[in-house]
C-alpha cells in the first residue's frame, strides 16, 4: 500500500547515494565563507558527503616580497596577513626579528604590546561574534558588534594613526608611546563592553534556535584536534587547555592572572563559548596591565643598521590560534626567508572531518566557528 511504496523509495534512495551525488561549488564569492574561500562540496540533497577547500584566491606573495624588503619594511605586510588581528601578526614577526638580532624590548614596550594585543583580541572576537551570528541569521548582533569595534578603532586611531592596519610594533618595542588619556579612554570602553557582553550573551547563549544549530555540530575530538594541528579556540573547544600565553609565555604574559577557557564537546557551541569567555579574560589582562605599566622607553636599543643572523621561530597566541614566523637571516638587513605559519590555513583541513554528514547550513556554522581570515590563509 502507500506505506510500503514510500519505504521502497526510501530504501532505493539509501542504496544509491552515489547516483544522486551532486557537486556543489560554494564560493569563492559567497556571503558566508568569510572571504575568498572556495569549498568544493559533494552533497546528497543537502547532506554533505565530502568537501575540499580550494584556496589561493588572496595569495599576495607575502613571503617572496619579504625577501626583498628591509626588516622594518616587512611589518606593514604582516599587518595584512591576518588583517583582523594585525597586532598579533606583527608581534610574531618582530619577536622573531628580535631573537635574530639579540635586541631586548624594554618593559614599558612589552606592557604596551600586551595591552594593544589584548585590545586586538577584543576587536577580532567582536567581529567574529557579529559575523557568526549574522551567518546564522541573527542580523542585529552584527551591528552591535561593529558599534563596539568603532570605539576600539577610535582608540587605535588616536594611538597608532590607523583604525585597522596599524604598523605599530617595531623591532625592539613600539613606534610611539601611549597618548595622554589612553588609560581613561580604554577603561571607559572596557566598562561599556562588559555591560554589552551581558546583552550579547543574552542574545545567543541559551537561545533555543542558536543552540540547536550549534550543539553537536562540527564535532572534533581532542585527539583529532591535536593530530590536525588545531590551535587557539578550535583546540581549546575540544577540551585541550593549550594557550601559548600560559604554556610558552612570551613578552610579559607570565605576570598576569587570567584563565584559559576550555570547551567540553568540541562542537561549534563549545568554540563559541570559549571565545565568549575569552572576552572577559582579555579585559582582565588589560586592566592589570594598565594598572602595572611602568614608565620608561617604548623602544629599545636597536642598531641603525639592522643585521639578521641565524634563524628563529616565534609563536604568539592570536585570536585565531598559533601564529608563527620562521625567520632566516643572512647577515644583511633583509630577511633571507620569512615563513608565516597561519592557524587558519591549518584549520581548513579540519573542515572535512567536521562537516561530513552535516547539512550545508551546518557548514556555514562550522566555517564561522573556525573564524577564518583568508588573508592569513593565502598570504
Amino acid at each position, binding site marked *: 500500500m502507500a506505506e510500503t511504496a514510500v519505504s521502497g523509495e526510501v530504501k532505493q534512495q539509501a542504496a544509491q547515494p552515489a547516483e544522486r551525488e551532486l557537486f556543489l561549488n560554494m564560493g569563492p564569492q559567497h556571503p558566508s565563507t568569510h572571504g575568498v574561500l572556495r569549498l568544493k562540496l559533494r552533497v546528497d540533497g543537502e547532506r554533505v558527503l565530502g568537501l575540499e577547500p580550494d*584556496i*589561493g584566491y588572496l*595569495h599576495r*606573495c607575502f*613571503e*617572496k616580497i619579504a625577501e626583498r624588503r628591509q626588516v622594518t619594511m616587512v611589518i606593514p605586510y604582516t599587518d595584512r596577513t591576518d588583517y583582523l588581528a594585525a597586532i598579533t601578526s606583527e608581534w610574531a614577526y618582530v619577536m*622573531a626579528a628580535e*631573537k635574530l638580532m*639579540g635586541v631586548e624590548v624594554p618593559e614599558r614596550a612589552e606592557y604596551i604590546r600586551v595591552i594593544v594585543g589584548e585590545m586586538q583580541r577584543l576587536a577580532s572576537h567582536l567581529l567574529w561574534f557579529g559575523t557568526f551570528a549574522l551567518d546564522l541569521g541573527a542580523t542585529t548582533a552584527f551591528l552591535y558588534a561593529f558599534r563596539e569595534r568603532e570605539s576600539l578603532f577610535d582608540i587605535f586611531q588616536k594611538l597608532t594613526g590607523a583604525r585597522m592596519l596599524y604598523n605599530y610594533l617595531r623591532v625592539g618595542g613600539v613606534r610611539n608611546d601611549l597618548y595622554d588619556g589612553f588609560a581613561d579612554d580604554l577603561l571607559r570602553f572596557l566598562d561599556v563592553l562588559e555591560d554589552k557582553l551581558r546583552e550579547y550573551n543574552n542574545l545567543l547563549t541559551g537561545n533555543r534556535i542558536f543552540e540547536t544549530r550549534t550543539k553537536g555540530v562540527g564535532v572534533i575530538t581532542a585527539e583529532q584536534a*591535536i*593530530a*590536525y*594541528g588545531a590551535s587557539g579556540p578550535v583546540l581549546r573547544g575540544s577540551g*585541550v587547555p*593549550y594557550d601559548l600565553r600560559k*604554556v*610558552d609565555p612570551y613578552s610579559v604574559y607570565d605576570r598576569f592572572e587570567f584563565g584559559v577557557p576550555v570547551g567540553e564537546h568540541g562542537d561549534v557551541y563549545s568554540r563559541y563559548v570559549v571565545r565568549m569567555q575569552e572576552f572577559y579574560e582579555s579585559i582582565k589582562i588589560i586592566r592589570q596591565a594598565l594598572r602595572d605599566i611602568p614608565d620608561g622607553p617604548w623602544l629599545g636599543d636597536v642598531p641603525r643598521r639592522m643585521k639578521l643572523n*641565524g*634563524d*628563529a*621561530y*616565534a*609563536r604568539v597566541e592570536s585570536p585565531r590560534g*598559533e601564529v*608563527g614566523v*620562521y625567520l*632566516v637571516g643572512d647577515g644583511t638587513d633583509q630577511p*633571507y*626567508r620569512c*615563513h608565516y*605559519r597561519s592557524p587558519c*590555513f*591549518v584549520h*581548513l*583541513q579540519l573542515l572535512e572531518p567536521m562537516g561530513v554528514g552535516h547539512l550545508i547550513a551546518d557548514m556555514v556554522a562550522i566555517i564561522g566557528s573556525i573564524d577564518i581570515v583568508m588573508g592569513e590563509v*593565502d*598570504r
Partner: protein
Amino acid sequence: MPEHLQPVAAALTDGFPELVVEHKADDWLEVKITADQSPEFFRHVKEHPGLAFDYLSDVTAVDYIDQGLFQVVYHLVTIGTNARRRGKLRVKIDVPRDNPRVPSVVDIWPTANFHEREVYDMMGIVFEGHPDLRRILLREDWVGYPLRKDYVDQRPKRTRVTR
C-alpha cells in the same frame, strides 16, 4: 643546554647515536637528520614516551641556493601537562636542489598535509608518500616554483598601455 632538557636530548639520541642536539637561542632544540633517517626518526620522536612530540606546528623549507640545497624545517612541540619540560624541537633535513625528495609525514601527523602541499607548491620539493601532492595556493597550471631563489616569472609579458 638547560638542565630540564637534558633527558629530552638523551631520548632524542636514543637509537640515533650520531645525532647532535643543539639548544638554540630562541629556546628550540635543533637536530639535523637525513631524508633516509626521516621516517624512523619522526616515528621515534612521536612515540618515544620521553619525547611524545604529538603536535606538528609547521613544515617549511628554505632555499640555500649558494650551497646547492633545500632545507626542510619541521617544528614540533608536545601538548600535555609537562609540555614545558619536553622542550620544543626543530628538525632540519637537507636535500639536494637537483632532486629534492623527502618522505612525507602525513601518516604520522595528519596536519602535515596542507603544509607539505604548500612547500611543494612554492619550492618544488616532492614529499614521497603524500596522498594528494598538488598545488595549493597557486593555480593548478602554474609553471615554476616561486619561492626558489632562481625563480623567473614564466608568464608572457603583457603590453602595457599608458594613459
